[in-house]
């Protein structure tokens, strides 16, 4: 892991201003921000641990906990909200038995919300991995999840 983190830092020229991008690359690599990676980052870039932790907890894109294999993102933007996105979220919470922000015990799914993905015409929208599901209704939730269940 040490080398991977060092590699990512090098990619951004060790530039502190690229901190968000550096953290995102680390998260893309491990599906979350591992403690050891952050410690390594703090040491290598000579940034106090407290400040790295601040960055990791301020931005919602980052997760300090291991996430599931499939990230289920529900859009809660205004356009999706007026078309009933809140009910879709509740439906997902019921089906996955987790609340927003949590991961299923088998680490299969993490349920997150996003405030607008830019697909407002097809709302309500759910994204799983790289796949988009538009015009969601409650009855479409179970078949959608089944596509990803193993």
């Amino acid at each position, binding site marked *: 892991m040490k080398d991977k983190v060092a590699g990512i830092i090098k990619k951004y020229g060790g530039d502190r201003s690229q901190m968000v991008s550096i953290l995102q690359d680390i998260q893309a690599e491990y599906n979350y921000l591992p403690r050891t990676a952050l410690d390594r980052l703090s040491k290598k870039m000579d940034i*106090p641990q407290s400040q790295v*932790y601040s960055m990791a907890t*301020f931005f919602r894109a980052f997760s300090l906990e291991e996430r599931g294999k499939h990230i289920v993102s529900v859009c809660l933007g205004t356009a999706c909200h007026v078309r009933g996105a809140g009910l879709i979220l509740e439906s997902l919470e019921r089906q996955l038995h987790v609340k927003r922000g949590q991961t299923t015990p088998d680490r299969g799914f993490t349920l997150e919300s996003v405030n607008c993905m830019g697909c407002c015409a097809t709302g309500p929208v759910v994204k799983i991995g790289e796949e988009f599901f538009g015009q969601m209704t409650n009855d479409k939730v179970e078949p959608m999840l089944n596509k990803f269940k193993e």
Partner: protein
Amino acid sequence: MNEPVNLTINGVKYTAEKGSMVLKVARDHGIRIPTLCDHEAIEPYGACRLCIVEATRGTRTRIVTSCLYPVEEGLVVQTDSPRIIKNRKMLLDLLLTRCSENKVIKDLAAEYGLERPSFREEYWEKHNCIVCGLCVRTCEQVVGVSAISLVNRGVSKEPKPPFLERAKACIGCGSCYYVCPTGAVKMEEKNGVRHIYNWKVEFKLKKCGKCGMQWAPEAQLEFIRKKWNLEAGFFDTCPDCR
């Protein structure tokens, strides 16, 4: 000294150095403006909003935080206009709802005629910290170790040690405790050990070789000794005995 400028505060004319902040100028002249997140040794932050004043430039009046507003020629300031008082009262109302049992906040609120929050009792909370950031800013700007930081954002924002574990970079100087306006930082010395509970740290206190008084954490002294390149044993005696 920078070029002097003339400004008016509460109807009285004053002269001040260009670029200095309204709050400092007011205080230099004995005008009282309440603050919570301000400290003379730390860069102003503008978080508590208590120091707001009405500032008029030409025809435009707006509400600004005096800690960060630079004086300029012809500026007219009102520190206690009805609009300001109303806003300060609501500010304290909000703080009191958050810190409903904190003495400092209760006393300040009472000064503005607020005995209890306007909000429903179900909303009242019992925090002591008002997230003014003084502890964190002091640790970064004065002590220079950045042992703690403000984590999360929004309503869950608060000062915490990294990863919510013992703050490893802390030297136990207690600056955070001294600078906290509401007593939210809990520090205690027991049996030769200083505890700062918020950051989960404890430090053995150094005993003076001469008088035996336990006067400062060993870690803090070692930090200072190294920083200023002082000889080993420099701090073996306390300042009184030296």
